[in-house]
């Protein structure tokens, strides 16, 4: 499908025959979420940059564009996607990036995908071509439907084009390593964030806290003196391995849970390897605990949990929604996709 008309006709056709559609970018996240539907809509052919002017800090791209291509184009102009989205094997598409709503190590300090979405073009469940938001940094005309699409896993429509805010690449980076235990690390990460320091990523794993600083060289140097610790060599490798989950701390033979919790939450006390990111707000656990145990722990830590990887084919599983919010989710789904044809079986289909 290489044009909006094609995609729209395809959706109209499926809709009129009540056929369900699996929207697919490159399939790079199918280990996490996957849908079984009557028809496959592969977005990879609808690719390319529509508009990019570095001094506007905005890029508009077609949804099938590979994230690695976008990163390369930005790199040439000294710019980046500040939320460091995972590229999972180098194949992720921009549409998949927005739909999944996943952000990388810098999320706690620079914001998430949804924070950088400025506008979205969307084909809804009856094949209509809709435009939300725009290409400028500030825009409050109409409801902010663009950001609603971030993390909705394609359940509300086919994202065809996206405008994103981009940022200058940090001038200088340095990663520090400090030894301490888990609760000390949680405290340290939160305390460091309450000082005016150029933090850009944090992790804690097996007794080692790692802190990345990014910004003007003078500021990074001053901050690194203040925080102490040793310099980590080849730090880029470490942060990329977290971003794309290639680090050895992700044991892919066991279920991998993602817990999104209050950053100051105490160690969760679950058995299994725990990796902490985002200043304490994101915790990964390889664990055989039952889902209900994990959900309970996540709730006590004022957050929620998602099963992110498991040995067998993906069965999306996450903390239940507050019952008060379910009717609104159902109605929103119906508003955008009245016949319920998009991505059956994925979260977002209520």
């Amino acid at each position, binding site marked *: 499908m290489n044009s909006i008309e094609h995609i729209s006709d395809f959706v109209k056709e499926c809709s009129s025959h009540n056929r369900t559609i699996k929207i697919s970018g490159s399939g790079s996240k199918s280990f996490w979420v996957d849908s079984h539907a009557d028809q496959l809509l592969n977005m990879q052919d609808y690719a390319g940059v529509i508009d990019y002017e570095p001094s506007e800090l905005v890029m508009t791209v077609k949804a099938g564009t590979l994230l690695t291509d976008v990163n390369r184009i930005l790199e040439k102009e000294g710019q980046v996607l500040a939320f460091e989205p995972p590229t999972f094997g180098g194949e992720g598409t921009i549409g998949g990036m927005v739909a999944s709503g996943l952000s990388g190590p810098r999320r706690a300090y620079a914001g998430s995908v949804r924070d950088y979405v400025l506008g979205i073009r969307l084909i809804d469940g009856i094949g209509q071509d809709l435009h939300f938001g725009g*290409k400028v940094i*500030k825009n*409050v*005309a109409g409801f902010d439907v663009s950001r*609603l699409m971030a993390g909705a896993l394609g359940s509300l429509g086919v994202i065809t084009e996206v405008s994103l805010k981009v940022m200058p690449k940090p001038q200088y980076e340095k990663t520090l390593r400090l030894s301490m235990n888990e609760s000390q690390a949680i405290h340290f990460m939160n305390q460091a*964030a309450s000082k005016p320091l150029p933090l850009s990523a944090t992790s804690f794993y097996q007794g080692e806290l790692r802190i990345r600083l990014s910004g003007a060289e003078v*500021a990074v140097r001053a901050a690194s003196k203040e925080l102490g610790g040793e310099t980590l060599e080849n730090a880029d490798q470490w942060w990329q391995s977290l971003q794309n989950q290639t680090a050895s701390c992700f044991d892919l033979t066991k279920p991998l849970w993602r817990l999104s919790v209050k950053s100051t939450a105490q160690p969760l006390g679950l058995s299994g390897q725990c990796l902490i990111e985002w200043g304490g707000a994101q915790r990964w656990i390889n664990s055989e605990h039952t889902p209900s145990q994990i959900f309970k722990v996540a709730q006590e830590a004022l957050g929620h949990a998602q099963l992110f990887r498991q040995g067998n084919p993906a069965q999306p599983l996450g903390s239940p929604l507050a019952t008060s*919010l379910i009717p*609104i989710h159902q109605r929103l789904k119906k508003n955008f996709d009245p016949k319920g044809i998009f991505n059956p079986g994925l979260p977002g289909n209520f």
Partner: protein
Amino acid sequence: MDRNHLVNLLSQCLPRESILTNPEDVKPFETDGLSAYKQLPWIVVLPTEESQVQAILRVCHQNKVPVVARGSGTGLSGGALPHEQGVLLSLSKFTKIINIDVLSRTAVVQPGVRNLAVSEAAAPLGLYYAPDPSSQIACSIGGNVAENSGGVHCLKYGLTVHNLLKVRIVSIEGDILELGGDSLDAAGYDLLALVTGSEGLLGVVTEVTVKLLPKPQLAKAILAAFDDVEKASSAVANIIAAGIIPAGLEMMDGPATRAAEAFVHANYPVDAEAVLICESDGTPDEVADEMDRMKAILESSGALELRYSQDEAQRLKFWAGRKAAFPAVGRLSPDYYCIDGTIPRKTLGYVLKRIYELGEEYGLEVANVFHAGDGNLHPLILFDAAKEGEFERTEAYAGKILELCVEVGGTITGEHGVGVEKINQMCSQFDDPTLACFHGVKACFDEDGLLNPGKLIPTLHRCAELGKMHVHHNQLPHPHLPRF
């Protein structure tokens, strides 16, 4: 619905003295910051508890009575304009800062808390709340959420939506919904983002958890004078292109500069045609470094004069004129009308020139003071409402400017919202299917359309009528410009 009957029902929700109906009591609520629109409220309620808000909304829902929420009433698009047969729900008694958590850097506040009060309360802890609308001494956090307000520092630190963690709203059915969470993301759809900027159409905000940031060690500002707005505009683009994200990047044109100078005596260069205020914050070394880079760019872009803040007092003085620019311009003429379009930065010079040209065509003066780094314009049109036809001419001129913003790839509102004011221009920015989708989103939260009806989204019928009119007069050149 009979008013007395409704008052009786409401008296079961909150004390009778918190329900106002006398014309002299309700008069202060007849308008918000956009005083061109006035409507005496039918009934005003001033609850003090969330449970009262729930009860009020239940009564209104059962009896199909419209409800307009109101914070401090500083909105500039008529968002809080009362409904002639509705209840005006003021959140002004919800002024408690419930909790500030230093370690997690968050504050939980009630919706009526003033924006500046949050930063003041956090200051002893070395923290502050970043979005700083120029109205921050008065506007409420609930209003900020409803408008997704910005400020002079939002290029670097984001808008309201970027600085929220959780919002509690009461639905029109009277149910409490918690959107977002204490973690950085929540299960389900991003309803927090959807509700931010929804202008009171989806629910009534009763509690807000905001993120606080550490106060930068140092902030310094440069004041740069230019003899031409186009040169100043390219300086703005050049700064961003060099990879600098200044803490603030604001522009005032000649008329705005002179008005501000006459008002606050900030020692602005009054013969300049454009003044930029560029702020840098961070560690002392970092600031020194960034100031040097900005200096070089400003000079090569044609700045005639550069001044550097030597201390905090002087920095604040640079800002004093900028922050008081609206009232300052207000002194030049009996009335002024503020516009809020956002445009791609590269079109700044062109759009400003067109604004002046259009001003001559309409015979109206204009002063520009705005968030240049964001491309968010605030042309202030000077007029005299007492003169026959002048307000109508002003509105027509304003409409032209907004259409110009859409034409160059921008939007009709960057931060002040649509309200009642820009409802017609929504028809030129969005096509019918998209507008219909907005109505659908609204119905997901409020099926009967009772929350702030007539604001933010025009009916398709209205757009069709407007379209006919415009085509007839052959005035609207690009009725449905694509924005991608």
